[in-house]
């Protein structure tokens, strides 16, 4: 249990000798520099994380989420002490940890590929860190059996990891972390190696575990469902920068920019080219021949930011888009029956749009080529600047 504070953290992977020469050679030859996706290449080296500021409260469950290469695992590894911090400060429980060895940070980490010691039994794997800390034998035994009980792996204690399934191995990995009762529990995509069913089960296990062991969690995932269900707060990252920090509800209802809006939510948010019109203190969006007034609380925020009429990117989630008699005209391309709802894939003037229609509200079936009109409410419309991609309400 501890507070974790990351202040202006930066991670740069310096060039190894030779790479820089190649880069300079390319520069002098006046060739266009190759741009790697998600990597910012500077004279210092490759920048993986920058301007990372985060205060994690005691016992909080923080989830770092983002696409591959966004710097989330690097950040977690810097907290663990497995990566050097290039710049900035890391505090755990108020103590500066930049130069403290991983073993002295009082943290535990669960890895994506379990990282169990294959030549040791489950019991020895779980007892290993306690033995290194010269904990008395009876205490080790008690702690290991308690953790095994919590994770329901008591019957496997004498087995070697190779005799366990993926799910059981991951339980052992979690067990190995919790026996130490660490101040901070770090988890690096712990469920990514499991199949979908097991992942759902383990997700529920982690939620239960969190209630029982009561420590500070930092959890990395690229799966937004995991992020939404597990996190007290979510940190969404892209290209080494934090895009937004907020509760699952906040990031879902008030995405800070186009990236967050598109990343959080499944199916992804629909985006339209629209016009934002300011008429006195009122704001309207015009799109596809319809004009919708934004909700008063949105108007208040836009007014506060002194937003003027301008072309915008309008974002509306599929679940907030309704089929109506009148609205934006579109043609049905695919209708996916999901059980409780139908996902309509529409083509609205060349734009792909998804609309979720609850089956209970359906008056008939949808066929490819049918013309459908859809609309949305001013409460659920998000307006993003065309220039900066930022939500104009922020």
């Amino acid at each position, binding site marked *: 249990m501890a507070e974790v504070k990351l202040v202006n953290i930066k991670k740069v992977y310096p060039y190894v000798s030779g790479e820089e020469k190649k880069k300079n050679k390319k520069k002098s030859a006046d060739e266009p520099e190759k741009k790697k996706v998600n990597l910012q290449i500077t004279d210092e080296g490759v920048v993986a994380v920058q301007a990372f500021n985060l205060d994690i409260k005691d016992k909080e469950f923080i989830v770092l989420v983002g696409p591959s290469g966004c710097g989330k695992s690097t950040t977690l590894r810097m907290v663990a*002490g497995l990566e050097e911090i290039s710049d900035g400060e890391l505090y755990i429980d108020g103590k500066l940890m930049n130069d403290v060895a*991983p073993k002295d940070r009082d943290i535990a980490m669960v890895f994506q590929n379990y990282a169990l010691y294959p030549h040791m039994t489950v019991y020895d794997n779980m007892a290993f860190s306690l033995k290194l800390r010269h904990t008395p034998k009876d205490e080790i035994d008690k702690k290991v059996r308690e953790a095994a009980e919590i994770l329901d792996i008591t019957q496997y204690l004498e087995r070697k990891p190779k005799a366990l399934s993926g799910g059981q191995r991951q339980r052992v990995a979690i067990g190995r972390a919790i026996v130490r009762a660490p101040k901070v529990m770090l988890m690096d995509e712990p469920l990514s190696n499991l199949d979908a069913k097991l992942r759902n089960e383990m997700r529920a296990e982690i939620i239960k575990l969190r209630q029982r062991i009561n420590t500070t969690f930092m959890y990395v995932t690229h799966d937004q469902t995991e992020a939404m269900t597990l996190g007290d707060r979510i940190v969404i990252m892209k290209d080494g920068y934090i895009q937004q920090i907020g509760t699952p509800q906040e990031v879902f209802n008030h995405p800070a920019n186009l990236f967050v809006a598109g990343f959080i939510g499944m199916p992804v948010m629909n985006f339209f080219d629209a016009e934002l019109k300011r008429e006195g203190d009122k704001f309207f969006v015009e799109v596809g021949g319809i004009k919708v007034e934004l909700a008063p609380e949105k108007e208040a925020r836009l007014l506060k930011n002194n937003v003027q009429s301008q072309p915008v990117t309008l974002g509306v989630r599929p679940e907030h888009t309704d089929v109506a008699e009148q609205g934006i005209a579109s043609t049905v391309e695919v209708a996916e029956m999901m059980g409780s709802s139908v996902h309509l894939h529409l083509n609205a003037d060349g734009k792909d749009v998804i609309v979720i229609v609850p089956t209970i509200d359906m008056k008939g079936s949808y066929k490819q080529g049918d013309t459908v009109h859809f609309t949305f409410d001013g409460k659920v419309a998000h307006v993003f600047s065309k220039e900066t991609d930022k939500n104009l309400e922020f």
Partner: protein
Amino acid sequence: MVRKDTGFQVFCHVILAIMAVLVLFPLALLILSSMSSESDIIKYGYSLIPKNFDFTAYKFIFSEGSVFHSYLVTIFVTLVGTVASVLVTTMLAYTLTINDLPGRRILSFLVLFTMLFSGGLVPSYMMWTTIFHIKNTIWALLIPNLLCSAFHIMITRSYFQNNIPPAILESARIDGMSEFGIFFKIVLPLSVPIIATIGFMKALMYWNDWTNSLYYITDKNLVGIQALLNNMLTNVQYLAQSMDASSVATDMATVPSLSMRLAIAVVGMLPMIILYPFFQKYYMKGLTVGAVKG
């Protein structure tokens, strides 16, 4: 369903059997001929079925009092040298796997360099005798071979990189283990195949080494078995002169020089032939590691 091509399998087995016989034939010929009498070899040539079994050649070899002593010297050197050499090789190989180690590339280059170029015999001799003063000491049989194979270092490094997930080492670091602890308690136990492989290679190297005895040893008490056998082989006169007159009454005319040459080869390699099957499983595994994704 995959159809089994029995005819092809039989063909393959026959070819493999022929190749196995071709490999075993010289070995069998060597061992059995060494048990033939000298006169039979002169008369009938080397034969798989000796006309008369005769162990005179072996009697001659073992009548040389220092054979057993030389055996002991070589066994000691092989055991100590192999353990020390495996330890040094694996430690250096592990060091070379640490990506952010300062100077790792230079260290790798220096190791690789020795694969291509050596210091040469005379400079090595001068270094060992004038700086390290190992002449006529047991160190002369141990130290020059301690780090002589960059190839061993490279295959060990490759094994570590391909077979030990970095997350296990990171996990051990978080658990509170020192770098030495990680090496001895995590890396080595997970590397039995490669340790057995290079261990066997190094044991062979120490066992078969006769040159260091030749260069640095003049003290009879420190001569290894291979050097002694080499002396016997190249100079039968040496054997006759050094034999204890009371043990085998003989003169130069009765020294079975042909069968003795064969017996010397058998005495030199027999311990390794006996040991090989115990290492074979790991040896094969070790040589093929990293060939395919595990």
